[in-house]
């Protein structure tokens, strides 16, 4: 077990003015496997922040801890200056979350699910109905609003989960792999929605494997590998002269430089 308490004295305080999301010394181990190894991260308010890293880097674990789903072993998280684990309800009111690899209440229809998410947040019925209507239209789900979510395709399921995350107009939106299995047209629509949201002062954090997407879409990026932040800042600071993908490979390593699978060549000669 890593002794996380050793980090405690060196942990800097939360920044002033408060960032949309500030993480200090956040750590989590499952058994003997350290998933997140004391990371620090500042997501400025109004930024479109990309979180990239190889599989198993600790992205989902970090985001779960930052949104109050998973209790950290050590460290602190603030959303707009509110301590997430000390004032859970207050912090969750500010945050919208699209988790990855999590089921939905899929025996509800799409419309019922988004309505449910709104009512759970304590919103009144008319506001919920109005916003559900707008969200389903914007995400091109109006035609299937009455279909049970269990019968949705993978892409539609992502979109309805996104709608459920947006219903209470959060100030911070945390999206774990939002574009997985979403078709290109829907993905473009979602990107437009997110850009409008950022332009109006909201903050978005997306995790993704797709470097091109992050480079085009985000203004800030953090590279995480093996539970540690390798680089963080504006996209231009992080990538320098390289493309984000090349810089990512350079940081994370792991490319095979050998000639590869000789026998896989289907030479005609």
């Amino acid at each position, binding site marked *: 077990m890593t002794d996380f308490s050793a980090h405690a004295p060196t942990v800097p305080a939360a920044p002033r003015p408060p960032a949309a999301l500030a993480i200090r010394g956040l750590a989590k181990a499952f058994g003997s496997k350290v998933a997140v190894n004391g990371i620090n991260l500042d997501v400025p308010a109004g930024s479109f922040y990309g979180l990239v890293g190889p599989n198993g880097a600790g992205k989902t674990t970090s985001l779960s801890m930052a949104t109050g789903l998973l209790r950290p072993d050590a460290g602190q998280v603030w959303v707009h200056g509110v301590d997430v684990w000390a004032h859970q309800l207050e912090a969750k009111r500010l945050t919208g979350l699209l988790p990855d690899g999590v*089921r939905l209440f899929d*025996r509800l229809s799409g419309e019922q699910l988004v*309505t449910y998410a709104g009512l759970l947040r304590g919103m009144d019925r008319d506001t919920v109905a109005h916003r559900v209507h707008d969200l389903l239209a914007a995400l091109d789900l109006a035609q299937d609003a009455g279909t049970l979510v269990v019968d949705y395709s993978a892409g539609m399921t992502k979109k309805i989960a996104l709608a459920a995350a947006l219903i209470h107009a959060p100030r911070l939106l945390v999206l774990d792999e939002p574009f997985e299995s979403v078709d290109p047209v829907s993905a473009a629509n979602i990107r437009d929605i997110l850009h409008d949201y950022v332009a109006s002062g909201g903050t978005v954090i997306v995790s993704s494997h797709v470097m091109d997407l992050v480079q085009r879409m985000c203004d800030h990026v953090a590279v995480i590998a093996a539970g540690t932040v390798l680089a963080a800042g504006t996209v231009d600071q992080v990538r320098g002269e390289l493309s984000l993908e090349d810089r990512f490979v350079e940081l994370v390593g792991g490319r095979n430089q050998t000639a590869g699978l000789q026998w896989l060549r289907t030479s005609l000669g």
Partner: protein
Amino acid sequence: MVAHLLRLKIALLRNSLRRSTMQSVGLAIGALYGLGILGTALAGLAVLGTQDPEVVGMVLVLAGSALFLGWLIVPVVASGLDMTLDPARFSTYSIPMRQLLAGLALSGFIGIPGAITLLASMGTAAAWWQHPGAAAVALFCGAVAALTCVVASRAITAASASLASSRKFKDLSGVVLLVPLVLLGPITTSLTAGVQGVRDYLPDLAHTLSWTPLGAIWAVPSAVAAGQWAAAGGKLAIALAALAVLTWIWKACLAKALVTPPHAGNLRRSAGNLGFFRLFPASPAGAVAARSLTYWFRDPRYSAGLIIAPLLPLVFAFASSQAAGGGSTGVVLGLGGALAAFLVVWSISSDISYDNTAFALHLGAGVPGAADRTGRAAAAGILALALGILYALAGAVVSGSWALLPATLGLTIGAVGSGLGLASVFSARFTMNAPLPGDSPLKSKPGNNFSAMVVQFSGFAGVGVLVVPELVLATIALAGNRPALGWISLATGAVLGAVFLAAGLRIGARLYDRRAPELLLAVSADR
């Protein structure tokens, strides 16, 4: 390749045990139980061997046919009972069909039901210890019979797979097929009443069965013992032909399944139907109640309970009318209603396990513990009270006595209130390996039920203690025909039920607020 499939099955079994000790304990208990059955069967067979060959042959044919029927019916009832080697998962590998069939068939023997069937079938040789020739034949025939059992159940599964891949069918069949299971008692009572009259008919039945695919293989040794070589050859031919036909059906269905991806027929439905969400107040608690109530009707894991519980009072009433005549039927209906109502409310004790990771929505939205507990309890409470009161009224009508209605009502209300209270605490404290969303209500992984059983049992015992006052009062009122005590029972049930409900909701809410992230982590382990 066949060996690979067998190794895969063993590895899957071993890894599932490695994930939790409780699963190993459960499997060990299952294995002991199976060994017990096997031992009893073998001893019984050896004792049977002292009888005349005709009697031995008759018993074996009847028992063997029943075993065979069991293997045919169980996979239909419990769709996906054991899909660890689901053929659909092999569709991307180019495994030659012949080897895939052999591997899947043999892997059916790895696991308690398959292994016990194989050993018991070959153990029929023990019944022929007076006839060594027949015993040798029985060894071979037992192996063939066990193989036929496995192939038949696989063929049925594969044949129903295309049907079963439609969600509506899966939801419906899992629930509807439970009904005959619950009514098994009354059905068998009626059947045995009929059969006792025609006990003389059994030898004829066995004789007929022995010429059908169901019983042929079991009849071969007795034909050998009797020296009827032509009959023995004919029956063996029937059995082998049946095995061949079943294999062919299985192969055909499998070949079709491997190239047909599961398809969900989609009817597009636009917005406008909010269902229960319209009826409940627009608050977090109201939303949770509306969602839970929707699940009681739409999720087969809940609706199975909702269908079984109302049948129980009928079963009890039937049993009591058999045992004690019609006099007590009304009382039994009312008391059975109280039990049914309790069973409905108790199912929310594993509510969060049933949510599985969908629970993340509650956690992410910061639903207060009080709202979560109250909403879930309200949905189950509405259903349980309606059910209990309905049966209390039905009991009063049947017995023609309204004076004792308060006694039954008191017990029902007390059981619902106390049950909801304790279940609200339990579901915030314990999670268990419940069937996953979308699975059949009957599905269970090998041996995962032991810890669940311990929790369930302590919960039952706890509620039993909580309802002692109204139970005693109601019993004295009903047994001694003292309506005054019935009113006291009603008052006690209402007061204690309300108190325990309020206390349970409070404690549950506090536990929930403290442990919600841990609950999500616990249910995430099982997905």
